[in-house]
């Protein structure tokens, strides 16, 4: 049911190889930084995709949960807790706050849920700019230490001072998250997410606990956002309220929608394609968001499946046509 054709598998393998070898052919530190950031955005956007794409709940607080992870790691590592403990704890905090917020707000539906989460996102953003004792106010927190080295027997230790090592760490997190999502979404339990999205009353009537399903999706998605945020803090070395802002949420939204809602590669493609596109459109300066705003509208009207969804449909059409031709020529020879 979910098996992929061989050429798709080969494509994924080629992309993985290209990603692993990236430090050898991208020497430019600036581009390298953009790629590393794209990986983190891909992680966060994948989490949003779980809630938005697969479960159909328009969460507009994703930037806030990203920010909780970032501030969590920043505050804990500055207090002397090692990164390897601070990262999962921060992600768990984001997930726990997601649970507390999800419990009441997931009773609302559609537009109401979107607005409630947007309001929550703005509250987190305002608090992160004003709670000076905890978050450093509008200046944020500087000088976040890099992750401590991991000792490996017979090998020495893996250090995380260079950009390259942080790149591989981010890549590992992305692959781990994608694998987890793959196992989750294509399991029988994952099908209930899509059942809730497609028809909530129907899902309810066949015995799915829709409220619990939405809650699990929301908490898991926010855990992933917190994880991405924690990595962001360690790589950037500084966090400011913009790492928890609602503009970040809208960026994630653009990645998910333009890349392709409810597909696993979609948010990853979006998170890579769009920052790269932005870099190429650097000369356009302020006009960039103007174009992206318009692009978002055009895509949602004409290609609601996004880039990956569109490619898949094209692929299916080509395959169908080929099959038709084969069967036609078969008839002719007979």
């Amino acid at each position, binding site marked *: 049911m979910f098996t992929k054709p061989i050429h798709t598998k080969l494509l994924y393998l080629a992309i993985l190889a290209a990603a692993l070898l990236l430090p050898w052919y991208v020497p430019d530190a600036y581009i390298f930084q953009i790629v590393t950031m794209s990986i983190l955005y891909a992680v966060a956007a994948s989490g949003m995709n779980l809630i938005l794409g697969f479960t159909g709940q328009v969460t507009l607080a994703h930037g806030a949960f990203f920010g909780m992870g970032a501030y969590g790691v920043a505050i804990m590592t500055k207090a002397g807790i090692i990164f390897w403990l601070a990262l999962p704890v921060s992600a768990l905090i984001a997930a726990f706050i997601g649970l507390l917020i999800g419990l009441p707000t997931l009773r*609302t539906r559609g*537009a109401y849920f*979107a*607005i409630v989460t*947007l*309001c929550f996102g703005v509250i987190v953003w305002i608090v992160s700019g004003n709670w000076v004792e905890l978050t450093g106010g509008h200046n944020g927190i500087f000088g976040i230490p890099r992750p401590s080295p991991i000792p490996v027997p017979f090998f020495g230790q893996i250090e995380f001072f260079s950009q390259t090592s942080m790149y591989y760490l981010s890549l590992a997190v992305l692959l781990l998250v994608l694998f987890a999502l793959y196992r989750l979404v294509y399991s029988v339990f994952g099908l209930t997410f899509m059942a809730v999205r497609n028809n909530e009353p129907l899902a309810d009537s066949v015995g799915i606990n829709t409220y619990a399903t939405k809650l699990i999706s929301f908490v898991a998605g926010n855990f992933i956002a917190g994880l991405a945020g924690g990595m962001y803090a360690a790589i950037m070395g500084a966090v400011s309220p913009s790492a928890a802002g609602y503009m970040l949420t809208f960026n994630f939204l653009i990645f998910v929608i333009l890349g392709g809602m409810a597909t696993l590669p979609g948010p990853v493609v979006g998170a890579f394609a769009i920052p790269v596109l932005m870099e190429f459109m650097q000369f356009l300066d302020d006009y960039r968001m103007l174009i992206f*705003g318009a692009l*978002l*509208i055009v895509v949602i*009207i004409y290609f609601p499946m996004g880039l990956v969804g569109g490619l898949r449909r094209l692929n299916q059409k080509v395959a169908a046509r080929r099959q038709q031709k084969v069967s036609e020529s078969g008839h002719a020879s007979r």
Partner: protein
Amino acid sequence: MDLFLQQVFNGIMFGSTYAIVALGLTLVMGILNIPNFAHGHLYMLGGYLLFFFGSTIGLGYWFGLIVSVAAMGVVGVLMERIVYRPLNDQPHINAFIAAVGSLLFLESFALVVWGSQGLRIPNPYPQMIEIMGITTSIQRLLVIIGAVLLIAGLHLFMKKTILGATIEAVAQNREGAMLTGINVNRVSAMTFAISAGTAAVAASLLSPIFMLSPSMGAILGMKAFVIVILGGMGSIPGAIFGGYLLGLIEALGGGYLSAAYKDVFAFGALILILSIKPTGLFGQKEV
């Protein structure tokens, strides 16, 4: 006591703006069932258009106001036609996303055309007057009077004219309205025009007092949502009452508790109320 009265006065002034903006939003949400996330940004654009027509072209405040309101009406029609109408039959989630797209578009449009620096519209009535121990400028008084006139005018339009009745008919039952021969698409476009136009009025009244900036629509738009949800989607009295209530809560909360966190109170109240009653305070049960 004077401070208290002053705060109440400010609250009523802000409340007037909130009431008008929420009114426009509740009309659109009642009719199309689409949360127009970009509504606050229509308000922002209205302010900038007043700057453009009034100051840059030099029509002056009042002519600039009339032209900018008319222009915003056209913007509203275009928005309905280009962004929302093609999404009528698609899942609701797509309309939210299109709304976020238009919000980003409008904000960066203002940023590109007018820059991120705050702009000031010359205040046509800067004179100060004193009533009952409250010192205020005439412009501030104008905000309150203008809001009352606009609300009264809109009420008469909705209740006494056929066009207003068609809006209400579509809000109550879309299919039923179609059956009686109402052109639903035209009513939607008109509602959007009124909604954008009223937002422009609010912006025109308030902007001589405060600076214009491309980001000023975002928070205001969200507050309008808070009001609409508290007052019940599509309820006009709810929007007016909620607008003044929020204005007063903010003025008193900001004046006596904490100015930095005043928006947190409003949004926190929304989360709390929707947690207890998921369809809003006066919302009907959904089907």
